[in-house]
Structure formats: C-alpha cells, structure tokens
C-alpha cells in the first residue's frame, strides 16, 4: 500500500510477470525456484541488467523496495506532491558538509532515479577513467572509455537520445539517434547569449528526452516537470522502457519489497536474497545476485550481512565497503534581469557547456566541471534561497523576482576521499535494519573547483546582462561506496562489477564509480550495466555462472 498524492491509500500490484499482476505474493512465478539471477533495485542499472539478462532467456527476479509507479495517476505536475519519488526514508548525515538526500539525490520505486532525473545524458570523457595516471588525483578505473564505447552507443540508440548536430567536447561528437530539441527555453537563451559574448562554446545537450515520436511515445511538450516524473512519457526511464521489456521477456518484478539480507552458504557464495513485503520476510534463491540499490543502500545492506568469514560485512575484506562516497558539487547561481526570463518554461536543461571539463593547470586544481542552464520551480527556488540564508521579508522579495531570474547550475567533479562514507547507525528502521550514516566533507581541492565554476557561471550571466543575486550551495548525484578496481585489497568489485570476495555476487550502480567525472553520470551507469550484463552472459555461456 502506498499513499496517493491525495493522501488515501491505493492498493498496488507488487508481483508483475508476463500476463500477470498481483497485489500479493501468493502467486509467484519463481517463488520457490532457484533462479539464475536475482537483482536488487529496479533503477537505471537494475533496469538495464534485467532487460539484457531476461532477453538472453535467463530466469530473472527483480526485488524493488518502492512502488511500481503509474505515470498517469502517480506523477503530478507539482513539486510538493512528488517528493515521494525520492528515497524519503531517513538516513543520518554528518561531516562538514552534511548531504541533502531524499528527492535531491535518490530515487525509490521502479525506475529508481530515472523516474525523476532531468534527462541530461552525457558520456564521460576518456580522461575520466584515468585521473590518477593523467592528473595524479583520484584513482584509475579498471576499465577505459573504449571498454564502454560500444555500450554507450547501444544505450543511446535504444533510448533514442536527442542531441546536437555536433557535440563539441569529449570523445564522441555525434550523430545522435534523434535531432536536438529545437525550441530552446528562455533560460537557455540567456545562457547561450552569455556564452557567445564571452566566446565560450555551448550547445543543446544530449537528452534522454524525445524530440520526435518513438515507440508509441510522443515528443516532449516543454512542461518543465522532469524532476516530478514525466507524465506524457516523453522522457526515458527504466520504468517505462527496460523493466516492461524485461517483463515481456519473462522476468518477474517484485515491487514494494525491501531486500534486507544477502544469504551466504557455507561455501561463502551468495545463495538467496531475503526481503520484506508488508512486514513479512520472503526468500528468493538465486545462482547469481546483483545489487543495484545505489550508493547508500548497497553498502548499508552489505555491512549488515555479517557472519563467519565476513565479520565486517559481506564483500568487505578490503574494508572499502561504504568508503569513497562522492557527489557532484552543484552550486546554483541566480541572476536577475530587467526583462522576464521565466524559469518554469521548457525542459529544465536545454543549454550546456563543457568548456571547463578537462584539467587546466593554470586554474590551480585538477579536473573540471560542466555548466548547465537549469530551470527551477518555486519550491526548488525557495529551498535554494533558504539555503543561502534568506527568510522573512528578504525571502519574499527574492521570490517576487522569480520570473526575472535566470539560473546556471554547475556539475563539478568531487575527488574521492575514503573518509566520506556510509556506515551503520545504532538506530533502526521499520524493517529492523540499522540506519545508514553518511559522512561527507568537501575537500580543499573541491572548494577551489567550485569557486572557479561559480566564477564562470557569474561571468556568463553577467555577460548576458544579468546581475548576480544568489549563490545557493548544493550537491547532486551520489556515486561511490563500493569502488571497482583491479586490486582486491583496495576495491570491492572488479571491472566486471563482480565482488572480489564473493564471485557470484555483483554490484552494479553508481556505487562502483571510483571517481565522479565532471558531468551527469547516468549514461555511464547504464553503459556499465550493459557491459556487466554482456560479461555475465559470456561467463554463463562458459558455464561459470555459479563460480567458486
């Protein structure tokens, strides 16, 4: 049961398989079977994995903590009523820069973060995978841009990404499957004008948003509510694409089911996932378990799975589970103009620049950032204004200027720090699980990068004729916590997302990122999931599925 936007409870389906829908777990398709794969989390990575593995005729069960959303009735054009698309369950936060979680960074329910993400769909640059070798910061990934190239291309194709004729930065310059969105929002026009005046290259970004019909879905109508869930289904999510495909190919998807344990056999291999549905414990046996529960919940689950041989948590012989949590720094800069802008109009991000993405030694820090023209609605605006210290009359005056404000948002690389981490609190949640504590502090290097990006955002807005009014500190996108690497002593999974300690346990989500890159991460998460699926299937063909 889940509350409807109006408050009353809706009875929901929790068991979904081809031709069947149940609001209880009494008619399971794979209930007592040992399936080939059990996936925890139906978000960006979990959705892609379920689709790939079901298409290859493996028997797949997906266990998802949140509801199976219905865009027609569950998504509303309203900020307050759609906060529940985020992971609202309380996490404790600590450190010098305690994180804002919930709707700001984490999804819950089928689709995960893709139901309410903004749809900016960027590839990482080749340098993002080799920051240690190139710049002496962070760590190198155990794989390279070339390893993901094919998967980036496939994902862009199936999502029907719309993008510019030529994308100026990184390794890939187009073409994209669909043309760039043509109508550009007033805020994006301001951004383009400012960039042009300063000689900074900018373009309409590649978006997981349709510019023309595709697969029975209409093109975007510029309503601007991407962060509240797309009602017309113009924006991609795994809720409307990969999960339904997986179901059509035979997967069973269980929603409103919270995984609470990975059960380990005497041989040290994972053998089942325990999960809670409406207060009752259930068990799904599987030959392979893949954890796709994102950055906080994956380490939280692993750290609570203790037993002989893994006293400090499952897959944690390195002590790295939970460590190296990252965000993107994401300060918002607002400037006021003499004429109206109207930040509510159009898809939120319709202009972007990666002119400051790579390392430039003259700036005094390594790595870089992306700048987006980024729309905003009233609740988001006041949250930024309150965060910048305004209340009372000052807050009201700033709000009255809403339609005269333009906004630029940065997406800045944050270096991994092992002290930024997920650990367990003594306090427990409704499932009896210990709550997560997330420690986070920005480093001095991160601060220098932020200062530079804020300076460039100001310059762009001022060059367009604006007067900077507010700088609202913020963060976006969680990453890390179960880093991938070649060395079992310093990482949790290998380049195939397979745990060093437990060979039939995989982790695939933003959690495995060793570094954050300086752009929106989801296309890379999905490409990584596609690659993980391909590697797993190769192993299955070689009959190594139950390794050890």
């Amino acid at each position, binding site marked *: 049961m889940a509350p409807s*936007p*109006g408050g009353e409870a809706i009875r929901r389906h929790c068991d979904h398989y081809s031709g069947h829908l149940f609001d209880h777990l009494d008619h399971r398709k794979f209930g007592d079977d040992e399936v080939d794969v059990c996936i925890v989390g139906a978000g960006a990575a979990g959705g892609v994995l379920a689709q790939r593995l079901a298409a290859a005729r493996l028997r797949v069960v997906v266990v998802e903590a949140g509801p199976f959303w219905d865009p*027609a009735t569950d*998504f*509303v*054009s*309203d*900020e307050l*009523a759609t906060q529940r698309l*985020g992971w*609202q369950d*309380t*996490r*404790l*936060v*600590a450190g010098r820069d*305690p994180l*804002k*979680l919930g*709707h700001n960074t984490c999804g819950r329910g089928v689709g995960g973060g893709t139901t309410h993400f903004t749809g900016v769909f960027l590839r990482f640059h080749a340098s993002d995978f080799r920051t240690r070798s190139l710049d002496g910061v962070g760590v190198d990934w155990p794989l390279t841009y070339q390893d993901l190239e094919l998967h980036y291309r496939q994902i862009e194709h199936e999502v029907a990404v719309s993008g510019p004729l030529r994308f100026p930065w990184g390794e890939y310059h187009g073409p994209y499957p669909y043309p760039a969105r043509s*109508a*550009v929002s*007033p805020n994006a*026009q301001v951004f383009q004008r400012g960039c042009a005046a300063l000689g900074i290259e900018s373009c309409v970004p590649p978006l997981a948003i349709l510019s023309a019909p595709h697969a029975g879905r209409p093109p*975007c*109508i*510029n309503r601007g*509510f991407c962060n509240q869930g797309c*009602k*017309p289904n113009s924006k991609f999510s795994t809720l409307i694409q990969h999960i339904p495909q997986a179901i059509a190919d035979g997967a069973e998807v269980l929603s409103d089911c919270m995984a609470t344990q990975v059960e380990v056999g005497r041989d040290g291999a994972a053998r089942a996932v325990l999960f809670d549905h409406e207060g009752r414990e259930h068990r799904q046996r599987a030959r392979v378990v893949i954890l796709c529960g994102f950055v906080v919940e994956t380490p939280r689950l692993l750290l609570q799975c203790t037993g002989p041989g893994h006293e400090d948590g499952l897959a944690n012989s390195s002590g790295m589970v939970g460590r190296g949590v990252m965000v993107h720094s994401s300060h918002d800069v607002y400037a*006021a103009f003499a004429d*109206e802008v109207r930040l*509510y*109009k159009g898809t939120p991000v319709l202009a972007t620049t990666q002119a400051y993405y790579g390392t430039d030694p003259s700036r005094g820090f390594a790595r870089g950032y992306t700048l987006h023209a980024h729309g905003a*609605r*009233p609740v988001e*605006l006041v*949250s930024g204004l*309150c965060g*910048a*210290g*305004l*209340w*009372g*009359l000052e*807050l*009201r*005056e700033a709000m*009255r200027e809403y*339609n*005269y404000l333009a906004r630029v948002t940065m997406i800045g690389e944050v270096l991994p720090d092992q002290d930024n981490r997920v650990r367990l609190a003594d306090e427990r949640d*409704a499932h009896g699980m210990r709550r997560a*504590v997330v420690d986070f502090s920005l480093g001095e290097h991160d601060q220098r990068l932020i200062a530079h990006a*804020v300076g460039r955002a100001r310059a762009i807005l001022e060059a367009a004729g604006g*007067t*900077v*009014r*507010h*700088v*609202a500190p913020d963060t976006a996108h969680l990453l890390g916590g179960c880093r991938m690497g070649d060395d079992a002593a310093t990482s949790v999974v290998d380049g195939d997302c397979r745990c060093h300690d437990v060979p039939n346990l995989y982790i695939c989500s933003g959690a495995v990122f060793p570094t954050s890159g300086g752009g929106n991460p989801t296309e890379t998460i999905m490409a990584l999931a596609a690659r993980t699926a391909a590697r797993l299937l190769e192993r299955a063909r070689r009959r190594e599925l139950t390794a050890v």
Partner: protein
Amino acid sequence: MASDAAPPVYPGFDVMAERLAWDPATRAVVAARLSPGRPQALTEAEARTVAAAARQLLAEDRSEILTFVVSHFDSRLQSDAGEGQREVGVPPEADLLRRGLAALDRAAGGEGAAFAGLPAAEQRELIAALAADRAEPADAFAGLPQKALFSKLLGLAAEALASHPAVWSEIGYAGPAYPRGYYRLGRGVLDPWEPRADPAARRRITPREQSGGGVSARLADVDGRTPAADHQERG
C-alpha cells in the same frame, strides 16, 4: 507585509482559473490546498505557535496561506514517510518539532501558545536568535539544536508557501502543465494562458541591494569576493 502592501505584479492573474487545463490527479492535489482540513496531529496550541512562527519566517499575513502551512506541518507529523536525511545529534522530526514548539512558548514566557501572544517584533527577534543559535533563555531550548530547529521550521513553512496557488499567482508562476505544455518558448514570448506582468512592476520588485544578509555572505564564501567589492563591480 510583502504580500499585500505593494500592488500586484501580475494583476488579475489567478492560476486556479487554469485548473480545467490540468490533469485530474494534479487538480485534486492543488485544489485541496485551498481548503485544508483541521489539524489532527498538532494540538490547538501547537498549531497557533506554528502559524505565528510561519508568519514571521515567511513575512506572510494571509490566513488562508498560514492555514495551509499549518496543515503541511500537521501532515508531516501524521505521515510515516521519512525525513530524507537528519543530522547526527538532531532529534527525529516529530520530536524536534514538538519540543521545539514548546520551547518557543517557554521562551515567550509561558505555556500554551505563548509565542503567538508576543508582539511581532519580539517574535521576529526570537526567530533571528534561533537562526544564530543564541535564543534566550538557553534552558528553554536545553537539548535542542537551535539551528536545526530553525531550518526545520523554515524548510517546511517555505515549501508549503511555495506550493500555494495564491503565491504562484503573486509571483507569476503558471503552475501545473499537463496535458498542456509550453509552445512559445523564446525569451519574451508567452503562451496565451501565461500571466502578464504589469509593465511598471519591474521597478517595484527589485530587492533592496544586498544589505549584508545571507546572500552576500555566501558570495564571499564561495569565490572569495567581499560583498563590498561585489557591489562596486555591479556599478
């Protein structure tokens, strides 16, 4: 107060007049804000304290808006949805709110809704002190992190304010957009259903130049400029 002193920027615009253009789920959610139910989790005294605090936090007098703000607090207290995040050492939301409201009343010199009985200027002073972590008497707030209490009160009040249709009309936010989206997107061109600003309004709504409040301080934090330098550059 800001809301009723100045003439409207968007004269004649009422976002609710567009409600038939919205999908039914959204329409129901927004319409419900105009007639919120009576508080169920908050006591009558607590509700009065919330309203009085919100009046200062939001510089807002209109009772229909304050009633909705109170009902938003009330629904948070009734809901079992989590808080997203809570800083280590801060009491859980319900506890923080309940004890915090009682503490405001104690600091105002009494039980019940004593805070609501204070003159407006004193209410404002107490809230400003809370924001700065130095509200007196300290023992009224014993065991309560004052800044966290201030942020919780402000955060909940402000998100409710920014969700009220009367405020949308006031700031010229065109509200929900589905099934109808936006089609005239260039700067300065409007779809017929969007609000029109009074041409003379721009002058009236320019905020007083940064008077050393939170914003300038933040600017100095993030890029090392002083608010004064910032001022000069703008000319």
